[in-house]
């Protein structure tokens, strides 16, 4: 079983986590057309390489981010959502 390193709880079996999907940036709901909005809801990019995604450690209810190479399934790093906010 894969190990995921939780920024708060350390390395744990991936069974302890809930996957919450890749980070997606919603278009402005007012400005977006129905087609643009539908693409945001339903279109999965699935581009090879490193993506940033949301995870939750269920026992501690801690939501964080991981950078993962979806081709090799290697987790490059994990970090707190606070860091994401700083990057914006």
């Amino acid at each position, binding site marked *: 079983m894969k190990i995921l390193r939780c920024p*708060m*709880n*350390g390395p*744990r*079996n991936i*069974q*302890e986590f809930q996957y919450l999907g890749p980070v997606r940036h919603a278009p402005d709901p007012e400005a977006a057309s129905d087609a643009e909005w539908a693409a945001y809801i339903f279109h999965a990019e699935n581009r090879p390489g490193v993506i940033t995604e949301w995870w939750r*450690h*269920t*026992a*501690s209810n*801690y939501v964080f981010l991981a950078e993962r190479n979806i081709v090799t399934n290697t987790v490059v790093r994990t970090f707190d959502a606070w860091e994401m906010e700083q990057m914006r």
Partner: protein
Amino acid sequence: MSALFPLQPGGAASELTDGLGPHAALSIRDLTPMPRFGIKGAGSAAWFAGQGVALPPVNRLAQHDDTTFLRLGTNDLVCLADGDNEGLTRLRRSWHDAAAPKGYWSWREESWAWLRLGGAALEGALQRLCAVDLRAQSFRQQDVAQTRFAHVDAVVFRCEAGFDILFDITLTAQVLAAIEVARHAAEQGEAS
């Protein structure tokens, strides 16, 4: 106002209390009725610090005057005592009297069952109940693990007698049954 917890007579899991007590191989003590409280959310850590409590880092515990302080998150703190404890009562009272911001009551005294495990077969039982390495060389005296234990989310930490486990109180019967299975297996099987 009389409180009733699952493993007390008439409680929701009271038919399983045969397994409790100072069993030779694996003793299980129910500490659910023991005093504790927790606060979480913005202001929690600052309020505790203001009370002169030296807070441990996240997922560590600290002890002051027979009270154990668990830090489950930056702003998620719990204090417990395995007997009547004046310090804890005083802290609780001053929290209620304090003005915000002071975090929010997290109802740990109602949401958790609290079991204390000890005995010769403890290591064998823990290996069967938890995938985290809880051996002394990997899991230190003041470490706290928020993990899966007996197939449920739980908080696990060391105490003098062995290990303390905190978990959703409505799962008491299930967890106790799983501990019984692990106790039996640990006694039968060789501790690896």
